């Protein structure tokens, strides 16, 4: 049983190693083409400056961004954790709802209701609006 487990994950591990080496290999190969002068490389100061509109850049690299993104990130953390809690419940639902009946449904329903209260609060506060 344990051997089966390791067999499957060993293949996933090998696959990960190859999957990482393929894009790295592509970049290295493309770099090698530069050394044998197949790929051009004529760097200039203007070419390597940040792109703004095709002319010489006038502004700084950094700039502010909307605070809204933080609200969405915070909401994401809350509701993604909720999603994670759903999975073990869902995986055992068919078996355990036979044993516990509606109780097993209600226990999750109460949890979802509490989280949804927070969601309604966020909506009413206007955190879901994009202005």
């Amino acid at each position, binding site marked *: 049983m344990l051997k089966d487990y390791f067999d499957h994950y060993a293949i996933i591990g090998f696959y990960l190693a190859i999957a990482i080496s393929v894009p790295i290999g592509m970049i290295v190969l493309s770099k090698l083409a530069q050394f044998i002068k197949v790929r051009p490389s004529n760097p200039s100061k203007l070419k390597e400056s940040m792109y703004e509109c095709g002319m010489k850049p006038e502004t700084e690299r950094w700039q502010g961004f909307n605070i809204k993104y933080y609200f969405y990130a915070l909401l994401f953390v809350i509701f993604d954790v909720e*999603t994670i809690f759903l999975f073990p419940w869902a995986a055992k639902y068919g078996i355990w709802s036979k044993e516990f009946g509606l109780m097993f449904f209600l226990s999750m329903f109460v949890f979802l209701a509490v989280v949804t209260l927070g969601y309604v609060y966020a909506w009413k506060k206007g955190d879901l609006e994009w202005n």
Partner: protein
Amino acid sequence: MGPIRESFIFEFLYCHLSLEASCSSVRILNIAFIPENLSWISFTLTAFFWIFVFINAALVGVLMLIWGERRLIGKFQARLGPNRWGPLGLFTPVADAIKVMFKEDIEPTLSDKLIYVLAPILMVVPVFMIFPVIPYGTKTFLTNISVGVVFVLAITSINSLSVLMAGWASGNRFAIIGGIRAVAMLLSYEIPMGISAAGVVIVAGSLSLSEVVNNQVIPNAIFQPLGFITFLIASTAELNRSPFDITEAESELVAGYMTDYSSMKFGLFYLGEFMATIASSAIIVTFYFSGWRGPSFIPSEIWFLAKWIGVIAIFIWFRATFPRLRIDQIMSLAWKGLFELSLINVLVLALMIAIWPDPSGIQLLIMTLINWVVFFLSIYIFGKILSPNLTGNKITKRSVVYGLD
């Protein structure tokens, strides 16, 4: 999760390498040469061979998809599409790949060098990782891990990190705006995606992808249409495809987080996006179109392939049909629409299964009917609630003709 040799493709090659006693019935040719006590060598060789095949198949699949998408979009728009290189323009993506390889690589001076290089690699790697866990046929799979659903959802969410890294490391204001927008969108759509996947898990009773397919008597797309629609929309958004391609809105953000990328690094982003379409379609087929199941006069792998191509065609159809959404429309669709719809789907499904734990044929039919009623009702109600926010100003005939409002 049974032994790895349940997989037909694995066992076939393994038994032609290893001299194990249990292998003799599988062997067709007597060419095995590795003794039984060195079985780890035959295991590794087999694994690497199939990994090689899978990764190359994925890359060739991307070339086919690029060609197919451009041809199909051409047909949709009543033009020819690529037709110069090879028969029907089949070699156009190959020419594209060679061109991308030999373009000049420009590294902007303001960029953060290490992260700038890591971002495109991180875009491609997670997409590759989806292919080994999908069951392609009754006995055709590479691995069959017991947490497949969670694995797939976790792996697909890594690309938001790559997008943020690319946007931040380029040192370009368009890139960082595009990157942050993309991450906000990807995060928002991950939630309805996860919740509707919980509906699939309830029906399957397991987190294993092969069990998801085994227990789908009625395809989930028919059994729980609400979950299917939310998952389809959410995965279109996760793929950054049209109509959710706000990050690459050329007219406002140049190319979003890819603005300062060139040559092979840009090629890797391109590769990652198209491969994600293929991988995501495979997930949708497994979750909602009952994977390899189908009448047995056609092999299960062919069923899977046919459904796979069909779902990819749906994505291409979306791209040809829908106009791009605004960022506020995208966010309100995710948070005010899809989130509740997916929750309603899970709760209705769970309630019905709590009432009928072992549904017979007629009960399954009633459950499907109730799901469809809930589908139309909730879409109607949420459409009514959200329509002023989603469509903005009321569209009149005048505004359509003259582009006003």
